[in-house]
């Protein structure tokens, strides 16, 4: 095994492949990436973004690793559509897989990797801006269905001494969209249905108290999107209604789940969400524009009707408005504005009843101080009932010549959350019912981050480029609760022992990366990426917590497009070991399901797509974890086995003329 790994790594290092991304801070997933890697669900994009440190418990829900390290660095993912805030979340948690939009309507996805300000929006984690594509002329129909099968079923051995537990199908996931486009107006209406089983032994074992066993998530949504250009104005509207638990179509109930780090445990729930987001832009003249965004989000969540272990519900309203003015004076462009957010967050079974108004002002500017030197600066100041906080990012790009560029950027400010984390809200509810006493969950807003990035990129020609850089990040005033989980042999569950609380933790970590991009022929694109990330200085506890990140990460991707109707892709990620000190007392004797240390992971995925009828019908097969290595992304998370997917896409574009 080690020998094979060495060969694969040598191949990686010898191959001259590499990232086309111009800057590490802003990652872009293009429509071609979505198609060539045959992304089945939106969160699959994380498998082709090695720059992000993400983990999953069950291959359906993904969490930011940075966002779950400390009490006051919230797991914050802010999702925008065409630059407009959606406030898409349930109980403060964003499951990107459930974002209600057909990926066929997506043109590209921009991801701000660091805590940053982006067009007047702030996230302490990452910002994901989903840019929709131009709708085809006249009436079109799009249909996508994908389903998968994880290996490991007993097969005929079910009736022998080799009998084992069954493994369910993954999916099906269905999208059905109809759209209409004309010169000045376009609209799309769609339906989405998703089924995600959570049948891994790691989950079932520790949730044996629930009435609901053999979990299946049923999630469905309807969504609408519209765009109008009239006179000097552009007006966009996105709206969606989604539901988990009882699906819109079909009778099989399937609760959604949320994993709580505080408990190392899943909570089953059902939810309804409604959101409407509108982004509008009016041009006053050739340089001046007025922009105003509106967002309303209403969501309710309750414990699953098939579970009575944890009592909670929520009834949340978030209303958000943003107004800004942009202009330019010569090569100096600027945007100034103000936003206000109203939150009414209620939980029926406990005392959590939070109403807050959060006004903010923001400004951004980009300008040139010399012909080859560009700058951009963005800042936000926001306050709520208790605190005022700020964040600023400052980027500089120096073009040395046609091929070489230096980028230097600084980020500094408070780490604050726009919505309360699910951990915070549910744990408050449990404390209120005396189910658990966390004595630990704080939501202070005074953690401070400062980060410095230096990056050099070289583009030899359109076929070969590389970039490299370093990042130094200092965090201070962090709160940390050292949890101590252990395995309860008799119950088969994870128990919480005495917590240890640390306040005002400080620390610094560093990151080094190098990426290459190489195109061989016109049909073979390769990317290679290597990243080292590790603790540099600070408190002892900070060093221990940082062991959660894999120090070394290698990524390689290959896209082969030899024919118009046939293409393939391959991507693999190798990460070195990770240690989660919260699980230090979990031993491998616990049925080999739970671990305290994640060993090296090697994940290899391939996708092949064949087009039929001039690519109106696309049939894709995706094999994830082809080598079928044991891969776990979290000490108590599920094990990823080889999974085989089929995806069928039917694109009937402009079939009805109007």
């Amino acid at each position, binding site marked *: *095994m080690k020998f*094979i790994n060495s060969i694969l790594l040598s191949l990686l290092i010898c191959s001259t492949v590499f990232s086309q991304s111009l800057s590490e801070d802003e990652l872009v997933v293009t429509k071609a990436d979505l198609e060539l890697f045959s992304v089945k669900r939106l969160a699959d994009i994380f498998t082709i973004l090695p720059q992000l440190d993400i983990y999953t418990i069950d291959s359906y829900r993904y969490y930011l690793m940075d966002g779950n390290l400390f009490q006051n660095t919230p797991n914050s993912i802010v999702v925008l559509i065409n630059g407009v805030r959606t406030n898409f979340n349930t109980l403060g948690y964003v499951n990107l897989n459930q974002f209600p939009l057909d990926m066929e309507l997506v043109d590209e996805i921009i991801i701000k990797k660091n805590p940053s300000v982006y067009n007047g929006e702030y996230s302490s984690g990452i910002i994901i801006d989903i840019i929709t594509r131009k709708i085809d002329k006249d009436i079109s129909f799009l249909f996508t269905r994908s389903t998968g*099968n994880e*290996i*490991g*079923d*007993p*097969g*005929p*051995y*079910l*009736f*022998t*001494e*080799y009998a*084992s537990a069954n493994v369910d199908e993954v999916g099906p996931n269905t999208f059905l969209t109809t759209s209409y486009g004309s010169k000045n107006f376009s609209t799309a209406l769609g339906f989405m249905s998703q089924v995600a089983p959570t049948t891994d032994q790691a989950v079932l074992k520790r949730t044996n108290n629930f009435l609901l066993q053999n979990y299946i998530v049923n999630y469905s949504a309807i969504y609408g999107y519209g765009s109008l250009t009239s006179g000097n104005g552009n007006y966009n509207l996105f709206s969606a209604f989604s539901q988990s638990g009882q699906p819109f179509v079909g009778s099989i109930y399937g609760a959604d789940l949320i994993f709580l780090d505080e408990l190392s445990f899943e909570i089953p729930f059902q939810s309804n969400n409604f959101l409407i987001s509108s982004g509008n832009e009016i041009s006053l003249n050739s340089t001046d524009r007025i922009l105003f965004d509106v967002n309303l989000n209403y969501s309710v969540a309750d414990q699953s009707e098939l579970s009575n272990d944890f009592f909670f519900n929520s009834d949340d309203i978030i209303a958000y408005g943003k107004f800004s003015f942009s202009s330019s004076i010569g090569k100096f462009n600027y945007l100034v504005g103000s936003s206000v957010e109203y939150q009414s967050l209620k939980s029926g079974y406990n005392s959590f009843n939070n109403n807050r108004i959060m006004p903010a002002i923001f400004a951004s500017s980009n300008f040139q101080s010399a012909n080859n030197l560009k700058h951009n600066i963005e800042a936000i100041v926001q306050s709520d009932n208790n605190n005022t906080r700020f964040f600023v990012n400052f980027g500089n790009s120096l073009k040395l010549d046609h091929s070489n560029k230096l980028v230097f950027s600084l980020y500094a400010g408070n780490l604050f959350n726009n919505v309360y984390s699910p951990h915070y809200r549910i744990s408050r509810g449990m404390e209120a019912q005396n189910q658990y006493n966390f004595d630990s969950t704080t939501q202070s807003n005074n953690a401070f981050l400062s980060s410095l990035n230096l990056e050099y990129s070289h583009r030899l020609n359109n076929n070969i480029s590389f970039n490299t850089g370093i990042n130094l990040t200092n965090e201070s005033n962090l709160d940390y609760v050292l949890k101590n989980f252990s395995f309860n042999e008799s119950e088969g569950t994870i128990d919480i022992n005495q917590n240890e609380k640390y306040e005002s933790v400080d620390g610094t970590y560093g990151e080094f990366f190098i990426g290459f991009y190489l195109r061989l022929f016109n049909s073979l694109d390769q990317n290679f990426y290597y990243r080292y990330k590790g603790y540099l200085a600070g408190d002892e506890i900070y060093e221990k917590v940082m062991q959660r990140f894999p120090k070394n990460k290698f990524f390689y991707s290959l896209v*082969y497009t*030899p*024919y*118009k*109707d*046939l293409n*393939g892709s391959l991507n693999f990620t190798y990460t070195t070991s990770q240690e989660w000190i919260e699980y230090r007392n979990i031993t491998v004797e616990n049925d080999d399901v739970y671990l305290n240390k994640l060993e090296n992971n090697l994940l290899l995925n391939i996708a092949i797509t*064949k*087009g*039929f*009828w*001039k690519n109106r019908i696309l049939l894709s*097969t995706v*094999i994830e974890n*082809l*080598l*079928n290595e044991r891969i776990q992304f979290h000490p108590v998370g599920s094990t990823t086995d*080889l999974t*085989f997917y089929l995806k069928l896409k039917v694109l009937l574009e402009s079939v009805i003329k109007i």
Partner: protein
Amino acid sequence: MTNKYLICLFILLNTFSASLFSQSTDKEVHISLGTVYNFNENEFHEFWNPSMGVEFEFSFDHQFGELGAGLTLMRFDKTANATLSFYGINYYFLFAKNFTIARNVSLILGFDFGLYEFRFDEYDDSEIPDVDVEREFAVKLVAGFGYRFAGSWSLEFKTAFNHVYTKKEIDLFNLHLDVTKSFPMSDWLAEILE
């Protein structure tokens, strides 16, 4: 355990060779009918005894190689009491590459992947789980020879290693004897398949 690496290596080499040697420009569709015979012995055969099976395949020429889909059907009779007999049905997508080595004779290399379905006999025993069908992902590596005769007919003799990814994995080595009829691809069919 090394199976998975050998499977990956075979598929990679096969794909690589396909990209080096482009397929004939004469586009045809092929329909095959044949028999399948399992000849290896391992732990699986302590529980089941396979009978001769049948195979059906549809494929078409693509610049990259031969692409298509197929199925095999085999009967597996139980040899131990504590289990059930079943029909094994393998549905798969196929890729094959023909290398001409002599007049009318070609070397065939390819691989298939798809689902292996275990369709159990009916039974009435409360101690046995109530399951009719089990399915699992399977791959098949294929190598053999083809002989073209009478213009559009071919006789193909192939060996195949069929690997089923059940919890306790199943390895079957099979012999395939197929008769294939080839047809020129009509324009309307070419438009659908490309």
